[in-house]
């Protein structure tokens, strides 16, 4: 078969694979050796928190950057993962048949029935992996199968985030209301007060993030990845080739949701609190800005962007609380309007990117095209009036 293989693509694929290997190596060294050596345990904990956001960002990069689905409700999946983990930790802290402290305070009715299964660590872990993906698959199929327009999907996912937060706040006896769940003592038998265990959590988060990057890398270079980009650019055309784009898109959306759920689940023991403030509309959209800055269609861009934005938020909002909101608003305005490809599309890094991206089909295409804007052309409304999306 290789006789048909063009020399150029073979060379670039090889070079791309090397670049990716080197990239992963560097990332692993930074995360596992350098960061623990130079950061205080407090700072390392913060980095662990950023890594959790980065997990959500990896999924957003896949669904939004590659799949063209503007996912504005990732906070919901993050929140499901987080609340599941928090429920388990609260139940475990309370001991066998015990009632979590906050419940005992505000109500005397005991533990709600739907909490009970999560006394089991295994049930909880399975639920964290399955429930967010399941909800995403349901919403995805319901919207994509009926060819609901791209903008509609974005708004529906946002409405989901709003409804989820309201639901959490509205049921304080079961969810801790607007305070959320906090004050966790143990994590699967390990004390969260022990710095060694906290470092272990950080390592888990770093390992999980790297694993997710490998998974998404595989999805991006696979035939599925090509198909996903094809769905983003011309969904109808894909249909006429005998594929159901709804399935293709739903898979990416569900994977993104699962990643958000895992991020949320690790967020809880690392940060020590989960509340509706972390899952509503505002944090859900907030997760997108890092992805946009880093470069939505790239592999590393969303991760680096999410970590950078989370770091900037921590440092800036300590000193200028209202300044951070302005900065965030400005980032959305300027990056999305004027630099839709993110920093990854800047000319300075283009040469480097061309090497890295050579194996990466769509990025290579953009670079060769001389057009830095990976425009998800889902709805050319103005070109076609009321054309179908």
């Amino acid at each position, binding site marked *: 078969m290789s006789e048909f293989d063009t020399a150029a693509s073979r060379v670039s694929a090889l070079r791309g694979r090397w670049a990716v290997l080197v990239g992963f190596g560097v990332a692993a060294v930074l995360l596992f050796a350098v960061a623990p050596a130079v950061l205080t345990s407090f700072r390392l904990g913060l980095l662990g928190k950023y890594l959790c956001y980065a997990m959500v960002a990896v999924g957003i990069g896949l669904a939004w950057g590659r799949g063209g689905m503007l996912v504005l409700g990732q906070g919901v999946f993050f929140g499901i993962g987080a609340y599941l983990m928090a429920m388990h930790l609260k139940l475990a802290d309370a001991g066998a048949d015990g009632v979590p402290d906050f419940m005992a305070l505000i109500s005397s009715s005991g533990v709600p029935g739907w909490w009970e299964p999560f006394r089991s660590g295994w049930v909880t872990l399975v639920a964290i992996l399955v429930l967010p993906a399941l909800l995403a698959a349901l919403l995805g199929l*319901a919207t994509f199968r009926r060819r609901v327009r791209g*903008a509609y999907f*974005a708004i529906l996912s946002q409405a989901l985030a709003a409804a989820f937060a*309201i639901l959490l706040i509205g049921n304080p006896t079961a969810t801790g209301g607007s305070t959320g769940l906090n004050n966790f003592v143990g994590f699967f038998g390990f004390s969260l007060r022990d710095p060694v265990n906290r470092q272990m959590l950080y390592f888990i988060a770093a390992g999980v993030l790297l694993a997710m990057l490998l998974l998404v890398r595989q999805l991006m270079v696979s035939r599925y990845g090509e198909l996903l980009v094809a769905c983003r650019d011309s969904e109808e055309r894909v249909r006429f080739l005998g594929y159901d784009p709804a399935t293709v898109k739903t898979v990416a959306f569900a994977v993104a949701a699962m990643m958000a759920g895992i991020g949320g689940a690790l967020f809880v023991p690392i940060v020590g609190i989960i509340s509706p403030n972390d899952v509503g509309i505002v944090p859900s959209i907030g997760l997108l800005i890092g992805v946009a800055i880093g470069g939505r269609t790239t592999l590393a861009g969303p991760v680096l962007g999410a970590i950078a934005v989370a770091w900037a938020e921590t440092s800036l909002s300590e000193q200028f609380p209202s300044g951070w909101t302005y900065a965030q*608003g*400005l980032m959305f305005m300027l990056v*999305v309007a004027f630099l839709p490809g993110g920093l990854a599309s800047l000319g300075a890094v283009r040469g480097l990117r061309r090497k890295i991206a050579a194996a990466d089909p769509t990025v290579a295409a953009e670079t060769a095209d001389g057009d830095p804007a990976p425009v998800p052309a*889902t709805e050319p*409304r103005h070109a076609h009036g009321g054309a179908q999306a």
Partner: protein
Amino acid sequence: MDVLVTQVFNGLSGGSILLLAALGLALTFGQMGVINMAHGEFIMAGAYTAFVMQQVLGAAGLSLLVSLPMAFLVGGLLGVLLEATLLRRMYHRPLDTLLVTWGVSLILQQLARDVFGTAGVDVPAPGWLSGPVEVLGFSFPRSRLFILALAIAAVVALSLALRLTPLGRRIRATVQNRQLAESSGISTRRTDVLTFFIGSGLAGVAGVVLTLMGSISSNLGTSYIVDAFLVVIVGGIGQIKGAVIAAFVLGTVQSWVEYSTTASIAKVILLALVVAFLQARPQGIFQVRTRSLA
């Protein structure tokens, strides 16, 4: 019977508020394809305009009447500013307008907090709008009736403007076929700006009306924007009548679901109903048929 009348009225009243919030969106999102998340903050700006007018003028009745056109102007100018600086370069990527305008919305909210404080402020209603009206043994709050009347007036005015005035014809022509409109000598740039002015101005008016419902704060817009978008989605793109029907249907459904459950469950059920509705009619109540492959 009591419950029925009360619930129907609550539905109409909630619907009229949704409608005022969504009417401008039906223009900017429905007709132009821009997903303006800052629409909620234009509503907020309208509400704060009413607050400022009352501080300046004192008399509640006079200030309310002055506030309505003033808020229209304030909202409209904000919209024009947004359109001219950012959105005009983004018509070919509508999904990104959502994120850009979200940034604008964050900034406007923070500005409001920095200027007016984080606590809510009250804009007392004039005497002729406080208290109930008794009809056939039922009492209806005057302010709610006023809002209902205003919503209807806004719809009528907008439909007439779109149908009868040269501007309206230009807007409709541009929406239906941009290239053709351009080659027929219509300045689509000017039409875009004007459409955005009217749509955003309507948000300002909605803001004034919301001051009659309670105290206002910087997150006033956030609480209405998602519902308003749902109205436009259910109504269908590019149709004012769709938005009207959708607003009253959603308002009525919400008031009934809230009556039989709680407000927080109602939100979830309403969303599920919207998703279910889109299964049957993916493009809303009124759909535009085309055969082009986009």
